[in-house]
């Protein structure tokens, strides 16, 4: 089923939502990302795979400038969102992050109620004019994250009281609620059991209709299941980027082949 879908979608993708040119990232003296060039498409799931420490999470965090919070991190090159360089001096990272949402490796709901978790983003960005609109956004986001039916009767209970899988879906709902254009996911399933993972993956597939989704994953099966495009990172280099089924069935670079066949990593 997955394969059919991928074939279908890989035909009509033209415009790049995010376009990275010659991106270099340094942590102090150490270079973590070397010469990365990549075009990420709209309404597509792009998977970043590669062994630990290969720079895939670092690159992901460059897209919404989360690396700004790390004092020693330094970025060169350009990353364009809809043709605008996100590292331009005039860009306020706060505004950027409202358009490029993020879901983290470990579920990190705020220690507040489920409702407050989801409504926080819309509130600070002024997306709702009144309580009714806010309620609507919360419901829509929770439905979008396939969590509504489980939590609709306990919206005022703390988000931290949910199970791990529910917490992660709550975090997705929280990210979705700010109505971003791109959703970055940094190993969203690494702390989840297979059932919760399945639910989140299903969710990612649905999210694709609205956003461009970029997911970092350690699981090649997951990459194969959810993504249409895959980028393989190794030692800071983007080694290979292309259609997911191409990468997994017909890798062009020997390093990619070794990795997906389990010889390195």
């Amino acid at each position, binding site marked *: 089923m997955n394969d059919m879908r991928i074939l279908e979608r890989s035909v009509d993708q033209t415009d790049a939502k995010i376009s990275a040119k010659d991106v270099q990232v340094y942590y102090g003296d150490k270079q973590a990302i070397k010469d990365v060039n990549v075009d990420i498409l709209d309404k597509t799931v792009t998977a970043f795979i590669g062994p630990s420490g290969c720079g895939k999470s670092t690159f992901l965090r460059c897209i*919404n400038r*989360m690396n700004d*919070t790390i*004092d020693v991190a330094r970025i060169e090159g350009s990353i364009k969102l809809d043709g605008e360089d996100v590292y331009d001096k005039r860009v306020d990272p*706060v*505004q*950027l*992050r*409202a*358009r490029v*949402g*993020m*879901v*983290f490796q*470990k579920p*990190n*709901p*705020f*220690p507040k109620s489920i409702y407050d978790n989801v409504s*926080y*983003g819309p509130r*600070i*960005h002024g997306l709702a004019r009144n309580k009714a609109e806010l309620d609507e956004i919360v419901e829509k986001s929770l439905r979008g994250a396939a969590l509504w039916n489980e939590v609709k009767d306990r919206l005022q209970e703390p988000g*931290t009281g949910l199970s791990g899988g529910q917490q992660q879906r709550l*975090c997705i709902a*929280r*990210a979705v*609620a*700010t109505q971003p254009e791109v959703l970055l996911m940094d190993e969203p399933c690494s702390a989840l059991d297979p059932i919760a993972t399945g639910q989140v993956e299903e969710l990612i597939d649905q999210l694709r209709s609205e956003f461009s989704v970029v997911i970092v994953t350690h699981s090649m099966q997951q990459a194969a299941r959810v993504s249409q495009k895959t980028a393989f990172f190794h030692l800071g280099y983007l080694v290979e980027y292309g259609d997911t089924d191409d990468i997994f069935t017909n890798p062009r670079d020997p390093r990619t082949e070794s990795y997906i066949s389990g010889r390195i990593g």
Partner: protein
Amino acid sequence: MTDATIPAGASPQAKDSLLVPDARTRKRNASEARFRAYGLGAIVIAVIMLLILLFTIITDGIGAFRQTYLTIPVTLDAQQLDPSGNRDPEDLKKILTLTYGNMLNGAVEGVIAESGIQVADLTEKDVNDLISKEAAAQLRNRVLANPELIGQTVESRVLVNGRVDGYYKGRVSMASAALDGNTSPQQLQLADALKDAGLLATRWNWAFLSNPDASDQRPEAAGVGIAILGSLYMMLVVLFLAVPIGVAASIYLEEFATKNRLTDIIEVNISNLAAVPSIVFGILGLAVFINFSGLPQSAPIVGGLVLTLMTLPTIIIATRASLKAVPPSIRDAALGVGASKMQSVFHHVLPLALPGILTGTIIGLAQALGETAPLLLIGMVAFVKNFPSAPPEGLFDPASALPVQVYNWTQRADPAFIERASGAIIVLLVFLLCMNLLAIYLRRKFERRW
């Protein structure tokens, strides 16, 4: 997993039996048992020391909360107290305590005669010194506050002198009284007789908490009223200065400042500041606030400023530690949905750090409450008899402080002041206990899980 068992002790392999601990294990267990014993011993010693301390303070100090009073009818003769007869407050003030003292002496003599008390070799001095020197002043204040009393005979509760009071608290005996110039066995016998007549009694003494300090000769009238007020005023100053400054400084250092050499130096120096001896802060306060800025001596504002300097590092260190303890994932989460740095700090990080900040602040305040040395240098050890007015003006009036009052009283010759000092320590400990309980309560109330 099989039914086969190795018979214990049947082979050289026997040392591997789980039923017999080997030499290594025995040694390890023995050292563990020893370590536990040391720990337990340390706890026991600490608890014993604490109990001894508390026991001594309470047995010494509980007496300060009880005081011996003589209840006698005093005739407030209008002729003597208001010769002009117009009840003019200005004229009334011209009558000195001496007149009231004579009046009280007359009243005591009257009571003795009326009750038919006979004590062998009782001198006039014994009778006149039975009541406190402060009693006349207290009576005068009472009359000045309420001139209507003049001409009436009022039942008065009169302080008796410190020695007689000490006699009922076990501090003075007949034998010691015989050697004492300030009292005599006859005076004590008189007191006993008055007690039998139901006129003299030792009762609960609220006045200890509300009275100002009293001079060397009048321990029975001394109280911690001004000291409590002075300490309270200083705590207000510390609270309104140290908490906002300390919390703001920590938030800036922890959340906003870039980590570089300068912030490293600042960080190290704040830690160093916490270790600076408190008397150094006193000298600083003397130089900067009194000599340079010209603020008044003995004033709670100066004490509060000095204690603010002392408390700041404690509050900053505690606040930074609790900010650090908030998991970075919460900050990431807030930034990830597009919150600004400040929104992420004030909406998410600060609420989570609040219990730690509150605890640190209250512990800093408690430390400041018990601080003595810097206050000695800025003149808060002065003898203060007049209550400071209400804040904010009162902050500039002379006042004392609880720990300084304790220090002050332990310097006095009369043993009755030892009791007062221990009483003041009890008051101080109760305040500290209350603050710590508040800290625990707030911690429980605001603690959230993530």
